[in-house]
């Protein structure tokens, strides 16, 4: 089995406009989605990322925000197990972030160490 990482892009602009109840309900969907993955024993880990941060450039300059902003921002990641890129991609299609304003889920295989 291979390991993959989902990079969730976008989805943080709408979050703050929602009521706590709506946020809670939305997180229920995330919970259900990830629970489904966990029950197949394919969940490894995953975290949400805060929308602020710094970026260190190659010339040593520090930018006081993530490199990409808004719609392209990486809002979180999930590590999972799957047999193939195709299977991982199918799983990624169920991402609840699309219910709101998620722009994309990037599915990337984790470099296999031999």
């Amino acid at each position, binding site marked *: 089995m291979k390991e993959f990482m989902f990079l969730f892009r976008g989805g943080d602009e709408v979050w703050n406009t929602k009521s706590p109840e709506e946020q*809670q309900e939305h*997180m*229920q969907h*995330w*919970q259900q989605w*990830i*629970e489904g993955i*966990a*029950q197949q*024993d394919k*969940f490894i*880990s*995953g*975290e*949400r990322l805060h929308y602020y941060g710094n970026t260190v450039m190659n010339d040593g300059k520090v930018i006081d925000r993530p490199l990409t902003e808004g719609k392209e921002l990486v809002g*979180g990641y*999930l590590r999972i197990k799957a047999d193939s890129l195709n299977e991982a991609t199918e799983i990624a299609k169920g991402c609840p972030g699309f219910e709101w304003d998620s722009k994309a889920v990037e599915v990337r295989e984790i470099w296999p160490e031999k």
Partner: protein
Amino acid sequence: MVSVLIKIFGTENIEMAEDVVQDALVKALETWKYRGMPDNPRAWLYRTAKNKAIDIIRRNKHSSVIDFSDPQKQLLTSGYTLTTTMNNYWQEEQIKDDFLGMMYACCHPDISQENQITFILKILCGFSTKEVAKSFLTSEDTISKRLYRTKEYFRKHKIKPRIPASEQISLRTHTVLSAIYLMFNEGYNSTHNDQLIRKDLISQAMSLCKSLLSVKRTQLPEVYALMALMCFHTARINSRLTEKGELILITKQDRSKWDKEFISSGQKYLNKAAFGKGLTTYHLEAAIAYEHCNAKEYKDTDWSKILKYYKLLLKIGNDPIVFLNQCLVILELKGPKEALIALKNVENNALLKKYYVYHATLGEIQERLGHNTKAVKHYQKAIELTQSKQEKQFLKDKIAHILN
């Protein structure tokens, strides 16, 4: 609350669960002292405990203290799912299930009955170690050791607190019910305490049984039967002791003091127990207790019905104590001669020889036969064998009565 937390942290981390509850209670006391009690103290406590649990999970996410291998628990390790998963653990229905699940874990067949009850009182009934020690008239040290042993067992075998699957439920419930019944008996006829009746144990036993009845999966006929049995016995509690705390036999009890509400709820439970195929000892014992409750006067008691139930009971299991009780029924129904003949069948039983009721019964029979010297000797033997102050006094009175 402890049950939910044990489910989250695992039975190997019971102390962690207890600490969280302790912390939540301390925080409640501190906060409520200044701001007054919140509208819903229960919800407040749950929320506080939940937040503490989240802190602990975050802190231990990468350590091996908590076992996250269960898919449900894996979700506690991710920021995406921690809060929601945690909230789901605290749903009202879930809490009820966890409480029962913990009850089944405490009554694991490999744990001795003594340890089962000790653990239930401590973890589920919220008794302090001191209170549990008092219930068993033993030292806090002994209780701590018992608790430690059970915790070690949980840790070693990673026992999961949950309601067993349907094919096992009847067998496992059997152990749970005997623990509840033992707890009830200890309350009803305390062998370890100066007080003969301990209402705290009785009400704990009944509420444990009630919680089994509150969930569909554990609404088994024998659970209803035990509940009925306990209701009938409890109905008579207030007539069993004089104001000075001396024992009154059922022959002399003031029947107007019997609690009609308990009797009628006992009847309701007994009716509900009448489904399914199994006739358990609880059914029969409840039926016997009901016959006693149903008689307006002692002389109205339907002894032949009761004798029939005893015969059925002995068919289920050849329990010498049940046999002894049957002899008492024979004594009422057919007189002392027959009863004495029946008792001859068990005169070599080692267990009975150490049981004070056996000697008290022999005393009663001999007294009725007019063999006063023999009767006194049996009563004296019975006095030696019981630890209860009230029972001793009761038997001494009987001797005094013969000698006068």
